[in-house]
């Protein structure tokens, strides 16, 4: 689990079954294991009211394990972007009582949370569990471009090319960490790039 450093740094918990009749899970890669682990604690019939949206990622594993839970629906998507329109639709039509569970990489949790916040769910009402890569979604504070899957410190902005310090300062609204130019005074100063978010 990621360490808490400053107040905006998200902290994640462990999924636990909530009361209610409708449950929506959104997960990627190893996030599937957070769901299967939670299933052990869920009351009988819990998945009769559950829908799972899953992005298997590169390794393509865990689909069968989720199928075995027999949710009402299992929707497998190639990427978060591809599932977003459908997610928005689901949230627009949903009612109070829908419980949201987000599991997997920070990028997925952050972006799914962003869509849910827009739909009116408070972030404290969502269950989250971080699993898998620590790669960050980063917004360059200079050009505002978003760079996905940042694993190094510092990191290059994929848009304007500045060398950025990836801060712990996180924006829920943007679902991204802030990246600030690390060598603004003297561009020739190039600190070593280290693998910081594997």
């Amino acid at each position, binding site marked *: 689990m990621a360490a808490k450093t400053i107040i905006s740094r998200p902290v994640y918990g462990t999924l636990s079954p909530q*009361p209610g*009749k409708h449950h929506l899970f959104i997960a990627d890669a190893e996030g599937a294991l957070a769901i299967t682990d939670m299933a052990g604690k869920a009351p009988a019939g819990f998945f009769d009211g559950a829908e799972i949206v899953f992005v298997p990622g590169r390794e393509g594993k865990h689909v069968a394990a989720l199928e075995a839970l027999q949710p009402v629906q299992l929707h497998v998507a190639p990427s978060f972007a591809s599932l977003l329109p459908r997610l928005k639709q689901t*949230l627009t039509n949903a*009612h*109070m*009582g*829908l419980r949201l569970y987000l599991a997997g990489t920070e990028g997925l949790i952050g972006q799914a949370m962003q869509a849910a916040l827009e739909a009116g*769910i408070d972030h404290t009402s969502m269950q989250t569990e971080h699993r898998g890569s620590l790669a960050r979604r980063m917004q360059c504070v200079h050009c505002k471009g978003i760079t996905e899957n940042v694993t190094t410190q510092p990191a290059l902005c994929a848009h304007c090319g500045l060398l950025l310090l990836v801060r712990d300062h996180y924006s829920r609204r943007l679902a991204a960490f802030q990246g600030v130019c690390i060598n603004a005074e003297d561009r020739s100063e190039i600190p070593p790039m280290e693998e910081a978010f594997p």
Partner: protein
Amino acid sequence: MSTGTTKLDVVVSDVVPVNELVTRFHFRRRDGELLPTFSGGAHVVVEMRDGDRTRLNPYSLMGSPLDTREYTISVRRDDVGRGGSLFMHRQVEPGLDMVISYPVNLFSLDLRARKHLMLAGGIGITPFMAQTAQLAGAGGNFELHYTCRTASLGTYADVLQQRYGNRVRLYHDDREERIDLERLLSSQPLGTHLYVCGPAGMINWVRDRAAALGWPPETVHFEHFAAPQPGAPFDVTLAVSGKTIRVGSQQSLLEAIEAAGVDPPYLCRGGVCGQCETNVISCDGKFIHNDHWLSEEDHRSGCKIMPCVSRFEGKSLVLER
């Protein structure tokens, strides 16, 4: 002086009977200035000086928060209570000087909500009078479901329907009209917050159903001032101030502590805010807990008591006060 209990010197500017049980009281500042701003759901504690006895009862402000020239409260007459409401009904007249506390809000709207779903029972309508006025002024989205015993006891039902039309739904007990709570709670859009004020049974019912239907606890707001219950007199030792006092049968423990010249903290005097929480040093007997603040565990442990509403029966009680 206790936290949040700064006083306001007011004069009763009007007394208006609303129906056979409820009377409305209007207060203005004696110095003619505007009263402090408040938000919908706030209450004030009214000091009632009745001979040598002073009662302090909380009442929700029911006027529009947009108008601070006067505060209004509505008091339901309770013929078997400890006499606070009877004092208000019988002895308070226009022109009387009174003292009230600054407003405190323990039942505020969560303005991040997309929609506010309000459930009122009986005199529990009063905080919603202020909240609906506040929301209507800001174009807020709300719906009010109001249960009353009979149409004539539906305090302000007419005013509310006139102001807000079909955003107000009435249910009359004598006509066997009941809220279809299951359906109501299952059909609300995401981002709805729920507010309940009314008798304890109604609040518990709504909270239970909402929890079972998957409403996150942070979206469910409720207010229930417990009135201090009369009971058998008992003796208490206040260890810090070195006093031994007797709590009369019509007096609350908090009132008895105050009468002994000790100034303990309080805010709501209705067992909801937590301010008056007091440690028990030793006891021989049983507690009669009436608050909504302490956990069940705290209640069982016998280590804490909320003197504004709870009592004691037994041989001895020593408090850290």
